[in-house]
């Protein structure tokens, strides 16, 4: 059959009137052409895979590659390509030596049970931030006062990044997610952050404390197992992956609950940890803040959903769209996948990805979100948006979705 129409351009835009919905063009493609070519910024035409089942198959396929140095890798933009190159780590590599081993060096600090043990501490941080917020003027920007500080304080504490360095790290990581950043911007920000983290690692060789950077300095750097450069890149990955995502989930999740009063009521009136846990899974599914599509390249010819994808072809997996796939989440006709329902069994969502690169920090993120959503509406039962939904500046322009600011009152 002759190829007559050019592939659609990706990314597609969300409808500004439905700020929580994935782009409708993607939901349409999920029905009409679940595996199809799209055209991206550099003129290449990777595959776009939109169904839940097919994305699971791509991301867990042994021949799929995350190697961002592969010339066929379908990058998000020139700026992100430049940053990935400068900060290359196990996140953007494949295989037992370049991915699995370094990931395991970090994994023990993020196990499910260790993260459970942090719950009380996260509760203390959450309560303190809410005390300060309640004592201040209103309306207040929830992002600045609460959503950003909770995960930032946590990841900085775990790593051992001093409070004094946190401001510079915030402004530098902003350049990473801004779709308007140039390659020069992102590389310069990466260099500064790597310098900051190398300095800390170096210092912790002789002055260890009880934190993750000290453990890396003592167990990896001092005996010469991994270089300062590699360890700084691993630390940078944790810093950047660990705060924007969770912060956006907190702000966006609050906005979603405040605009779904029946769901909010269930959350506000419960003290059942199981309902809080399912609320968090449902918010992760419904909002899927990692909304730019996970990127891969086929390392061999592979079969996905009955279609042949050839070695060297790029693949984009929009997990936001997969998480609205009715065939995976509409277990019951009264529970459409495009509704927010905090009682839905949603644990099989792909908000943390799937396959060997599935989020390493997911158990930390879960505990943070569970503490936040079980506390916020209980402490402030009258919490309300201080601006109409239509006036909120959502992050259409960022590679992680969320709200630039969220004015709330009580």
């Amino acid at each position, binding site marked *: 059959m002759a190829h007559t129409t050019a592939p659609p351009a990706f990314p597609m835009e969300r409808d500004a009137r439905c700020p929580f919905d994935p782009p409708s063009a993607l939901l349409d493609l999920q029905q009409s052409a679940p595996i199809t070519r799209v055209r991206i910024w550099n003129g290449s035409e990777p595959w776009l895979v939109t169904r839940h089942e097919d994305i699971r198959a791509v*991301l*867990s396929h042994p021949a799929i590659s995350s190697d961002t140095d592969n010339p066929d890798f379908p990058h998000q933009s020139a700026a992100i390509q430049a940053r990935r190159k400068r900060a290359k780590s196990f996140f953007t590599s494949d295989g*037992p030596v370049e991915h*699995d081993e370094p*990931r*395991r*060096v970090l*994994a*023990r600090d*993020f*196990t*499910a*049970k260790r*993260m459970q043990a942090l719950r009380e501490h996260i509760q203390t941080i959450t309560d303190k931030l809410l005390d300060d917020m309640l004592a201040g003027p209103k309306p207040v920007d929830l992002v600045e006062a609460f959503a950003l500080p909770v995960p930032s304080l946590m990841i900085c504490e775990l790593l051992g990044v001093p409070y004094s360095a946190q401001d510079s790290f915030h402004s530098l990581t902003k350049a990473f997610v801004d779709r308007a950043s140039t390659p020069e911007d992102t590389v310069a920000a990466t260099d500064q952050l790597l310098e900051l983290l190398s300095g800390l690692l170096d210092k912790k060789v002789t002055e260890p404390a009880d934190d993750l950077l000290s453990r890396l300095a003592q167990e990896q750097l001092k005996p010469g197992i991994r270089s300062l450069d590699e360890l700084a890149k691993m630390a940078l990955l944790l810093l950047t992956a660990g705060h924007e995502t969770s912060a956006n989930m907190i702000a966006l999740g609050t906005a979603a609950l405040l605009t779904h009063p029946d769901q909010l009521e269930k959350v506000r009136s419960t003290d059942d940890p199981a309902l809080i846990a399912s609320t968090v899974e449902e918010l992760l599914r419904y909002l899927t803040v990692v909304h730019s599509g996970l990127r891969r390249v086929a390392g061999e010819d592979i079969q996905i959903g009955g279609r042949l994808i050839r070695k060297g072809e790029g693949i984009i997996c929009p997990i936001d769209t997969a998480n609205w796939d009715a065939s995976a989440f509409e277990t019951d006709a009264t529970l459409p996948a495009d509704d927010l329902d905090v009682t839905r069994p949603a*644990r*099989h969502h792909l908000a*943390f*990805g*799937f*396959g*060997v*690169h*599935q*989020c*390493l920090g*997911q*158990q930390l993120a*879960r505990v943070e979100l569970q503490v936040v959503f079980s506390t916020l509406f209980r402490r402030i039962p009258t919490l309300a948006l201080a601006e109409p939904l239509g006036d909120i500046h959502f992050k259409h322009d960022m590679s992680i979705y969320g709200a630039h600011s969220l004015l709330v009152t009580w």
Partner: protein
Amino acid sequence: MKIHIDEAKCVGGGQCVVAAPEVFDQRDEDGVAFLLMENPGSELHASVQEAALLCPAVAIAVAER
């Protein structure tokens, strides 16, 4: 029910521990999953099946017998 964890594949994200905390835990040294019991009772079978389904590395094999 017989459960097998492929340690070489495990990426230590802890999905199995969240799904079936009675059955799975993670090693202190590298986060790799291990079994807390060899033969979970029938009341745990559904959560073990869920753990296998959620495992991102497809490292958990379950055989009913």
